[in-house]
């Protein structure tokens, strides 16, 4: 963490090697997140480069009390929102409460089959990959941030600039949605 702050300080002083080290540290996690949000690897690489360039040009506005990773992913998330807007994809804000927001997660579970006994892990993983592609981008983003990039709920709340409770509820909903779709498909 302190190393990271030191790298940022050195970058701001014009040391390009310091910024190269920051890129090397985050390039794979950022590329993984962006790849899940776009349709091709080439496009993901272009967006990743774009995000790092934006990060560099705005580095003077970074406030050290926040984690650098959340700040970086906030820039990435905004870049993705711009991309979805251009593609006219679903970009509704996740803090918009839907009327059925509280329903599924408070109900008792309605599992009918045992996924664990019936299917191998890789089969479920393949299904999840297929399902992620058809999820609305805003849902997919939360799921990827939580379960692929392994951000905490607090960090996701900071990235998306919404309350932690909303993030938790929405992530639970998405997971439940995926599980139900898996149960139907498998």
């Amino acid at each position, binding site marked *: 963490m302190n190393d990271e702050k030191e790298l940022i300080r050195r970058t701001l002083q014009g040391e*390009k090697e310091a910024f190269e080290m920051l890129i090397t540290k985050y*390039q794979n996690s950022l590329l993984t997140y962006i790849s899940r949000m776009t349709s091709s690897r080439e496009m993901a690489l272009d967006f990743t480069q774009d995000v790092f360039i934006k990060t560099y040009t705005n580095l003077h506005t970074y406030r050290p009390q926040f984690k650098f990773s959340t700040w970086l992913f906030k820039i990435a998330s905004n870049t993705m929102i711009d991309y979805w807007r251009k593609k006219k994809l679903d970009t509704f804000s996740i803090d918009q409460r839907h009327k059925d927001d509280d329903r599924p997660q408070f109900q008792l579970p309605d599992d009918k089959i045992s996924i*664990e006994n019936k299917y191998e892990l890789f089969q479920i993983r393949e299904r999840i990959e297929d399902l992620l592609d058809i999820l609305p981008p805003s849902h997919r983003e939360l799921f990827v941030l939580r379960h692929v990039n392994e951000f905490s709920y607090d960090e996701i709340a900071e990235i998306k600039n919404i309350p932690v409770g909303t993030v938790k509820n929405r992530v639970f909903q998405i997971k439940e949605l995926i*599980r139900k779709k898996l149960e139907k498909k498998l």
Partner: protein
Amino acid sequence: MNCLTTKEIYLYLDDKFPGHRDDVEAHISSCAQCSLAVANRRQVLRASKSLPKETAPAGFARQIINFLFPARARLKDVVLALSAGFLSFVFIIFAYLAFTGKSLAGFFLTLSQTLLEAVQTASLVTVKTFKLFAVGFRVVRQLFTLAFHEISRLASFISTEVQILLVTISILGFLTLFYLLRKFVWAGGKA
């Protein structure tokens, strides 16, 4: 303990369950429905966490750095390039001398003679070009003088109103010509 809601199951799997974990675990082990529900969700979470991660290609970070900081030629590199160029030139001259068997003095004499001839030719061409321009200028000046005299003579016979009319027609004609040229020649239209 009552059966867990789906939200409570996720909180339990996230290690964020507000109550006693031992109580929950005791309930799960004794309740078939909750046990199945927890197992299914745990399996989905395990599968999600094992989704493949992307890896950036080699040199990706360097590529971004090169984009942010385009390379500028350093003075040292420029001096090195000029020195290399000069040395190559010297080497070619010596290679030529060695191949033809000429002396260095003879080579420079031939070179200076060639240069002298080139300068003489260039001077001659320059003088002739200037003479040509001077003749062209005189011809154009005489043409304009003649045209001015003739128009003045013509104007003395024509009334002011007719003169204005003629000037207007000329301007309109010129503008029309300009428009047609622009439309059919420059803009690539069809005549």
